[in-house]
Every structure is written in structure tokens, then in C-alpha cells.
């Protein structure tokens, strides 16, 4: 049997800031349609790993391949045009603009224009459709409210919709659930499951382990920039090194 090639292949990725090893010799592969969770204590290099894959930070060494093509060192906009979208840990929308106007920027990108064959119809209408998909109730006209007036749950969903607008093959969520109530998380999970149904590959950086393990196929654990475990959620949490990294402060 022929194995399909991985969608994303990261090998020996290393990045240090001054003396701090933020990401150290990390390698992993991601199959098409998979949902990979990345966990690790604060400062373990999760966001840096996202920044490396999306081109916001250049690695000291190592190699990143996407769909068999080397993308190491490419500019962020080029990586997006190949099909990788991301969200940010800190959401910072245009606070003074209505939510749907916040969607215009990704809808204006060359990738969207190309996929839609020249013109992508009426951007405002597409923006409203996408926002409805992530739970901006159309009847309540939430999408017309200025972003600054919306609660955190909506801002995170706006961030999600902005990534979806790019019609990516791989989405990387950097702590999408952080700062949300249980109810808000529960309302976002079905949206993610729908993305999986559309065969979009997903990487989720999370601190909310319980919610993550419910949806992730596989979990990768970082500690001080190093990969210390990679496998199904349950197995990973049994492993000694992970227990130590997470519970170290309690058992010591």
C-alpha cells in the first residue's frame, strides 16, 4: 500500500531568541484531514512554532514542507497563498469597524480572488454569509455591530471566520478557546467539526486539554522548545516526561 504524502512535514526546526531556545529541533508530520493538538506549558514555544510554519519568524535551521513543497523562509503572504491560514492568540480586530467589515481584508487577498476565478462577487455579502456560519445570528444583526462592542466569544469567532475566508487547506488556531466560557467553547466546537467534515486539516494550540482531547486525533507536547511526546491524547498524558512537565511543580 502506498502511503499518501504528508500535507505538512516539519524537520529539525530550531529557533532561538538571543539565548532562549524557543523551538529546538522539532520534527513532525501531519496527514491530510488530521486534527493535531499542540500543548505545552507557558513559554514552551507553541506560538513560535506557529510563527515559524506561517513565515512570521525565520528559523535558525530546519525545514518545512507543505504539499511536498519547501516553504521554509517564504514570506507570510506567500504561505497563505499556498493554503495555510492562522489565527492569533491575541485577537486584535478593527475595533471601530463593524464586524463584517473586518472580513473584507482576507476577502481582498489574492488567494481568494484566484480561487474564485477573478471576481469573488460581493465581498460584503460573502462576509455576512461566513459570519453567519460561525454563529453571528443574522436576525439579531450582530455582524453589523462595531467589533469593539462585541464580547470575546464573538471576537474569537470573527478571527475564525477571517481564517475560513481564505479557504485554506490547513488552519492553525493559536489558543482559540482561551478566555472563553464553557458555553462559548461548546458553541465553537461544532464549527471546527464542520471544518473537519470539509476535509480541512487543523492544528490547535490549546491550554484547554479536556476540550482538545475530545476532538484531536493526535497530540504533540512541547516543553522548553523540545518535542517530548507525540501520539493519541490518552497515551501522551500517561507518558512520564509529560506528567513531569505538566505536574512538575506539584510533585517536586
Amino acid at each position: 500500500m502506498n502511503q499518501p504524502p504528508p500535507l505538512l512535514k516539519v524537520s529539525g526546526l530550531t529557533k532561538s531568541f538571543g539565548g532562549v531556545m524557543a523551538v529546538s529541533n522539532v520534527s513532525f508530520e501531519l496527514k491530510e484531514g488530521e486534527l493535531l493538538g499542540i500543548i505545552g506549558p507557558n513559554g514552551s514555544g507553541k506560538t513560535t512554532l506557529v510563527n515559524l510554519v506561517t513565515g512570521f519568524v525565520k528559523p535558525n535551521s530546519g525545514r518545512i514542507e507543505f504539499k511536498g513543497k519547501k516553504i521554509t523562509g517564504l514570506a507570510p503572504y506567500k504561505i497563505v497563498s499556498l493554503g495555510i491560514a492562522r489565527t492569533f492568540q491575541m485577537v486584535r480586530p478593527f475595533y471601530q469597524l463593524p464586524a463584517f467589515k473586518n472580513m473584507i481584508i482576507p476577502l481582498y487577498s489574492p488567494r481568494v480572488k484566484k480561487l474564485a476565478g477573478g471576481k469573488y462577487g460581493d465581498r460584503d455579502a460573502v462576509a455576512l454569509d461566513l459570519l453567519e456560519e460561525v454563529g453571528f445570528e443574522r436576525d439579531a444583526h450582530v455582524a453589523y455591530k462595531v467589533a469593539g462592542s462585541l464580547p470575546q466569544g464573538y471576537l474569537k469567532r470573527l478571527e475564525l471566520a477571517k481564517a475560513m475566508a481564505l479557504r485554506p487547506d490547513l488552519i492553525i488556531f493559536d489558543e482559540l478557546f482561551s478566555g472563553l466560557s464553557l458555553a462559548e467553547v461548546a458553541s465553537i466546537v461544532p464549527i471546527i467539526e464542520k471544518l473537519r467534515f470539509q476535509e480541512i486539516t487543523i492544528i490547535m494550540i490549546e491550554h484547554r486539554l479536556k476540550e482538545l482531547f475530545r476532538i484531536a486525533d493526535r497530540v504533540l507536547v512541547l516543553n522548553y522548545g523540545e518535542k517530548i511526546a507525540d501520539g493519541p491524547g490518552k497515551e501522551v498524558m500517561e507518558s512520564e516526561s509529560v506528567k513531569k512537565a505538566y505536574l512538575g511543580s506539584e510533585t517536586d
Partner: protein
Amino acid sequence: MKKRKERIDRGIKARSEDIFALSSYREMLYLLVPRAIPVVGLLGVAPFLSPYWQEVFISTSIYALLAISWDLLISAGLVSLGQSLFYGIGSYIAGALNHYCGWSPLFTIPVAALGGGLLCTVLLLPVLRLRGIYFAMVMLVLPLMLSRLVEATRILGGTEGLPGLTPFPNQLIALYVVQLAVLAALFGFRRIMASDYGLVVKGINDNDRSVMSAGINIYLYKTQILFIGASVGSFAGALGTHIDMFAGMPGFALDYAIMPIAAAVVGGMRTFVGPMLGAFLLVPLSEILRALGALRIVFYGLFLVVFIVALPEGIFPYVQRKYHQLERWVELE
């Protein structure tokens, strides 16, 4: 009994830029009048001015062009401390083409605008990645360097400059040309910034990482905005040089760098109207204050400070707010 001011937005749907759901002549007037004011105010007043004030208005309009160009750059997060770079380069290109090749202003001015825009963009391309203050410093230094270069190498007439350039047929025509340019830049730039393209540009200023993650090449956009702004600035320089019948090192003078910023701050940044208003306030004021001799700068500076403290948002945003809101006193229990 205590009273407090209550503010109410006028109930006119047509307030948003792209929904034109006008339901009456009153609403139409409400929209048209503010747009007609600059057109009538500039073009209509010109023939009634004395030759002296025509001259003042010409130089005011040239500063207004530089201020509007500055405002475009700031919308993309490019802080220009060197509008004099654009002015000087535009003026030298037009001057040289007229002086050495005998081209008519009809050709020198457009060529200087586009050529100057291109040259400035190429000069600044290597520093376009620098943010805020770093870009600003380079823009401050370039015109100073270029004027010393002209002095040292004696190219383009050296310190003497290029005199005897072709003037405009008469002063009124010159005034009309400059004013039309101001109006074109004003309405053109407001249109650009209200479009989806403008939204992307504002996004770059506000949160460039978020725009990058949307798959947009922010340097391409910054380059385009720089080119447009530099072209308008070079256009101003080319007009000014034919009006003065002279191109020379004063084209790189600090005045051309500072006045546009002062005008934008006083009038209200990122509105294009504001910088224009600011120029029409500050340049004539500085003319009137000439009578005070040496104290001129003191009063001028005082005026600026008082103004900025009293109206930090700028004239235009203040007026706009008043126009769109009804205010009334309501009684408090």
C-alpha cells in the same frame, strides 16, 4: 436645575459611505453641501482675490497638496518627515526638462509628477520595511543630503539653481491649476480610502500582522501608496517651480517638510480635508503675521500650541461630528 448636553445622531441613512438610500431633497442637500463647500470655496473665490492674495493662495494650495500627500502616507503608517524630498525632486525634474530641453510646462509637470514619484519610491524602497520613527528619520535626512549633493557637485546649477523657467500664462491660471489639483487629490484620496483597497491600507497601519496573515503583501501596498503620495508631492514641486520660474536647493527646504505636518495636525489627520483646511489656516496666517517682524514665529508658535491643546482631534473631525449630530440641552433631575 442641572442641565447636560445630549447628542443625537441625525437620522439619515445616507451617512454611511456606500449606502445611498436618499429619500428626500433635504437628505441630498445634507450630503451635497459639505462636498460643494471646498469646490466653491476654492474655485469661486479665486477671481475676486487681489494679485497679492492670489499669490498667497497659490502657495497655500501647494502646501495643501503636500499636506494631503502626507496624510495619504500616514494612513498606511508611513510617517513622512520629508515632504520636501518629493517637492525638491519634482521641482528639479520639471526645472531641468524645461531649462535644458526646453519642454513646455504641459509636459514637464506630468513627467515630473510621475518620474518624481517613481524616483522617490525607488530611493525609499530599501527603508520601506522600517517602521515609524526609522522611516521618518530616513525621510528627514534624504532631502538634506540631496541639497548638499547639489551644492558639492554643482550639478543642476549648483547653488545658483536653474533660473528663467517658463511661467504660467498668468497668475489666475496658475491658481486654478493648483486648486484643481488640490480638489482632485482631496476627492480622489477620500474615495480610495473609503474603498476596500483603502480598508486594507488602514489595516496595515492598524495591525500589519493581521493583514499579512490574510495573505496580503503589505509591502506592495505600501509601495503603491508611497508612489501615489510621492507623485502628488512631486507634482506640487513641479507646479511651484514653474510658478517661481526657478528650481534650486530651496526646493529641499525644511519648510516643505514641516508645514504639511503642522497643517495635518491642526486640521485633523487621516481625513484629507483636515490637512487642506490646516494649510488654508496656517499659510495665510503666517503671511498676516509678517507684519510683526521678528515676533512672527513666536505668535505663530503660540497659535499652534493653543490650537493643538484646545482641539487635539483637529478642526475637521470636530466640525464633522457637530454636523452629524444634533445637540440639545436636557434637564437633569
